[in-house]
Each structure stands twice: as structure tokens, then as C-alpha cells.
């Protein structure tokens, strides 16, 4: 038996969480550092465009940060955990079955919704409005005998971005 399962995730979740409270971070390069401020663990799109790579050590990108005015944050897991919890609360208004996979990823059972794409759109809009972080949602029909932990590897993810639907495979 196949069930429609949605996966939601947030691009640059830590950056999005920092941006909620600081409007000056909009449209500028932002990075969030790992524990002890070692490496960049979250990069805004603008920071990615500067070529700052995931996990790149801070001391190697000091010049870039200075040259482009990159805003740099120590990680604030209390904040990210709180925002994550709030996002899940919104998801729970849209489906009775939410499985938290990571701080910014959830599996959501979309069984019983006729227009799943519209449902996903409404959910994304609600998260953006009520909390202020952008999330992406993909939907796939999944054999229910798989445990959700395996979903990620086998998902053909249907992304709903800017009104366009893109199919992509989520890496394992």
C-alpha cells in the first residue's frame, strides 16, 4: 500500500531563524558557525554565491567576510530549537501525523487530502506567515512498509518553489 508522504525542509534553516528577529539580515550574506565558532555550518544564498562552502573553517574565509561584509553568527541552538518546535506546531495544523526527522526536516502524512499540492502550498504559506521562515515541501507516494527513516534516500521529491514544481532526488 502506498501513502502520500510529504517531506519538509528549510534551506539555510539557522540563517532563516536568525533573520526572523533581525531584518537587516535580509538579502545580505549571512553565515552561522559551528560550536566554538569553528566552521560555517549554515550559509544564506548570498553567502553561498560568494563561494563559502559548507563546513569551511572560519579562518580560511576571513578575507571574504571582510571584503563582502558577511554577517557572522555563533550558533544559537536554543533559538533554532524553539523555531523548529514552532514550525512543527504549524505542521500539526495540517496533518495529524508528523514525524520529526531533524531540526529542520519533518515527514508529514498527507493521506486523505485530495489536492496535496494545494495543501502543501497552504502549509508553506502558514509557516511563512506565522513564524517567518521559508520551508520547502516535497510529496511522494511511499510504500508504507518502509520506515520513514529510509524515506529520504528513496524520495523523488517534488519541490514547490516559486509556483514551479521541480522533481529532484533527495540524496541519501
Amino acid at each position: 500500500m502506498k501513502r502520500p508522504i510529504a517531506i519538509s525542509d528549510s534551506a539555510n534553516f539557522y540563517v532563516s531563524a536568525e533573520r526572523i528577529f533581525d531584518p537587516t539580515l535580509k538579502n545580505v550574506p549571512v553565515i552561522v558557525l559551528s560550536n566554538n565558532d569553528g566552521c560555517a555550518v549554515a550559509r544564506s544564498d548570498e553567502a553561498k554565491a560568494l563561494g563559502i562552502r559548507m563546513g569551511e573553517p572560519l579562518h580560511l574565509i576571513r578575507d571574504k567576510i571582510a571584503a563582502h561584509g558577511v554577517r557572522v553568527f555563533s550558533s544559537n541552538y536554543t533559538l533554532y530549537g524553539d523555531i523548529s518546535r514552532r514550525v512543527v506546531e504549524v505542521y500539526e495544523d495540517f496533518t495529524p501525523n508528523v514525524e520529526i526527522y531533524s531540526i529542520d526536516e519533518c515527514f508529514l502524512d498527507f493521506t486523505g487530502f485530495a489536492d496535496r499540492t494545494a495543501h502543501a502550498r497552504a502549509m508553506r504559506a502558514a509557516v511563512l506567515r506565522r513564524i517567518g521562515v521559508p520551508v520547502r515541501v516535497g510529496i511522494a507516494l511511499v510504500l508504507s512498509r518502509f520506515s520513514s527513516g529510509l524515506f529520504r534516500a528513496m524520495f523523488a521529491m517534488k519541490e514547490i518553489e516559486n509556483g514551479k514544481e521541480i522533481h529532484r532526488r533527495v540524496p541519501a
Partner: protein
Amino acid sequence: MPLHRVKQPVIANGFPMRLVTMPASAGFPSPAGDDLEDEIDPMAWVVRHPASTFWWRVEGDCLWDVGIRDGDIIAVDRAGKRRIGRAVLAVVEGAVTAKILRKRDGRYYLAPANSREKFPDIELTEDSEIWGVIAGVVRRYDLA
């Protein structure tokens, strides 16, 4: 022109709801004890939507007339309806400010509410954003 900034969220860590671990009894406690009023949780009374309510600390007195003062902690609900006349948190030129939402001649303004000091109205532009609607205010007084 003083834009009264509202500082970083008082809670980012989600403990505001947990702050109220002891529900306060509404009304005067009855010595009889068998006719007690319902208990209320004042924090839950303010926070209608826990997921979308964030706490900020107010700086400045530009909303004095509606009972919001410098140093107060305000609950701001992002899911609240943006109605004319409501106290809102807005983002203007990258700064966060608390004001009253007004409409005049088809244009929207952020207006202060302070009859003692004059602050200019700010017209809402495409670049400004209503961040949320003020849902409640918490204040405490010196005891020392």
C-alpha cells in the same frame, strides 16, 4: 527622529510559557476554599497562538497612551490580523519599531500613541513590513 527600537526577543528559547509554572488564582482567595474560582494562566491568556507569538522588549515610550512603556515586555503575534488601530510591530528601514497602524486618505501609516511627546507618523512603503500584532504586555514594578 527617534525610532524606538524593540530589542532582541526576550525569549528565543521558548520558555516564556514555562515561566508560568504556578497558575495564579483569579480573584481573592476564599477562606472557605470550597468555592474556588477557576484558575487562570495569565500567560496563556495573552498568548492565543503559541507557535506564532514572540516576546520582545520595548524601548521608548511612543506607545505610552495605549499602555506600553519603556522596558515592557510585549507579546507579538505574527498570525494576528493587521487591523487599523491595532498596535503592531513593524520593520522600517531595517529597524524594528512598535506603532499603531493607521489609514488616512487611502494610505497606511505607523503612528505613535503618546500625547506628551510628538513623534512623526511614518508612511508604510513597499519596503516596510508589519512583523506582527501586539497581543499583550507584561510589566513589573520595583519592590525594593
